[in-house]
């Protein structure tokens, strides 16, 4: 992957120097491009600190958490504390400046990491497979958007809510790529619950997905849907899977939920790591014989309808 360096109004001469420095980055096995700033996301934006435009771009970049290299006329040195470099500084200092800035973000590891190309045509499936045998966190990329799948904490995170929404729109599409995440997403990331993110995706794209092989799994964990009170069907599916119902037919029949939706919800469970392969029997405690007084069926019906257990999720 190329490192995307952008230049905001720094003049012809300087642009040439930056291109030369960019070429020298190859010696560090880093491919980079230098282009004009167009306001979109990039790995580093170079601005002149002495003019108003440069200052505006710098403020905007700070807001978007885009690393900035500031050019000043004051001297010919590089100050790593402020990422400021003098316009007369030698090329090798520019190279050092880029390396320092890129190292601070995680652009470098991304540029160097082998990127597995997603052959799966549906983002959610590709994601689900990429997560399948992984305990750690994953960085998922689509359309220049990065989504951190933080299995360690149960979140998804992106630079902004807008990024996350865009990523959701892509979960039915191809083009996703993945690599290990270093676990540290952006500093002021936008977070969402991993369970809710995946289950909503499963519901949304259920119709496009293959039938989920539910017989191969059991419920390892209930989804945390506490902050998504509109998601009722996934609760009912979780309950039945927990009780050992293992076919889509059965699950659809018992709930009255469309089979492709049941399957979609299960894909969501899988991507959120809520299902464990049936073969892997951990300590499965059998709960003691219940001494609780179960409500009579008609009372249960009243409870269920009062609290809306059977209402449709969508």
């Amino acid at each position, binding site marked *: 992957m190329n490192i995307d360096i952008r230049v905001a109004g720094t003049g012809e001469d300087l642009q040439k120097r930056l291109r030369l420095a960019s070429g020298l980055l190859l010696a560090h096995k880093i491919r980079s491009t230098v282009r004009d700033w167009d306001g979109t996301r990039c790995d580093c934006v170079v601005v002149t600190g002495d003019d108003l435009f440069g200052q505006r771009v710098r403020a905007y970049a700070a807001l978007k958490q885009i690393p900035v290299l500031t050019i000043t006329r004051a001297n010919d040195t590089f100050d790593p504390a402020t990422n400021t470099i003098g316009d007369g500084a030698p090329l090798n200092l520019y190279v050092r400046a880029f390396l320092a800035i890129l190292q601070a973000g995680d652009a470098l590891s991304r540029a160097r990491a082998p990127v597995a190309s997603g052959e799966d045509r549906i983002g959610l499936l590709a994601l689900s497979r990429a997560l399948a045998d992984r305990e750690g966190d994953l960085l998922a990329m689509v359309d220049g958007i990065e989504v951190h799948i933080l299995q360690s904490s149960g979140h998804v995170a992106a630079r902004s809510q807008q990024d996350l929404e865009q990523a959701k729109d892509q979960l039915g599409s191809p083009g996703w790529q993945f690599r290990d995440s270093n676990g540290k997403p952006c500093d002021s990331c936008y977070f969402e*619950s991993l369970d809710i993110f995946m289950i909503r995706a499963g519901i949304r794209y259920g119709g496009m997905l293959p039938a989920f092989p539910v017989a191969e799994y059991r*419920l390892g964990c209930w989804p945390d*849907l*506490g902050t998504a*009170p509109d998601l009722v069907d996934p609760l009912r599916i979780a309950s039945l899977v927990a009780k050992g119902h293992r076919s889509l037919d059965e699950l659809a029949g018992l709930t009255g939920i469309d089979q492709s939706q049941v399957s979609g919800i299960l894909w969501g469970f899988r991507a959120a790591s809520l299902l464990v392969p049936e073969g892997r029997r951990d300590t499965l*405690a059998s709960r003691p014989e219940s001494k609780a007084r179960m409500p009579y069926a008609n009372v249960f019906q009243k409870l269920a309808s009062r609290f809306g257990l059977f209402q449709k999720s969508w």
Partner: protein
Amino acid sequence: MMENPDSAAVKLVIAGPVGAGKTTTIRSLSETEPLSTEMPMTEAAMGDKTTTTVAFDFSTVMLDEEVPLFIYGLPGQSRFQHMWPIILEGAFGVVLVLDARDEALEGTCQEWLGVLDEIVPGLPVVIGVTKTDTLEAPSLRSLRSALASKGIVLPVFTFDARNREQANHVIRALLATMA
């Protein structure tokens, strides 16, 4: 002492440590303001203190025109533990409310599950973790893996106890485990 409730009553108990959000949950679930019943305590129950009062929460929600659901809050302090079996008697399920900011969350949770299971073995329980809104990136992972390592599979919901819809959803999860 509190009277044994009517054996036909439909009863739900909200349990959990002091300050976790039990009263708030009950208030969110209720259509009317819950009652707090003041109870005189015996000398024995209180150790060296002779008198005190404890407020436990009580509220009703009508399931239809005739059938009320009684919701009880279990007084959190362990010195009121002697009341717990009485309050839990006949309940169809429990919401165990825990505070996400509790640094010993897993321990607190397992302690409570242990106590509840001792009083009413096999009682359906869901866990509602409150106050995650006060944390930057709250995580259930360690609580989940603590439960999973014991083979316990039950709903663990993060929710805002002040939010009616979310409190209702926790009850739905409880009902889902029983469906």
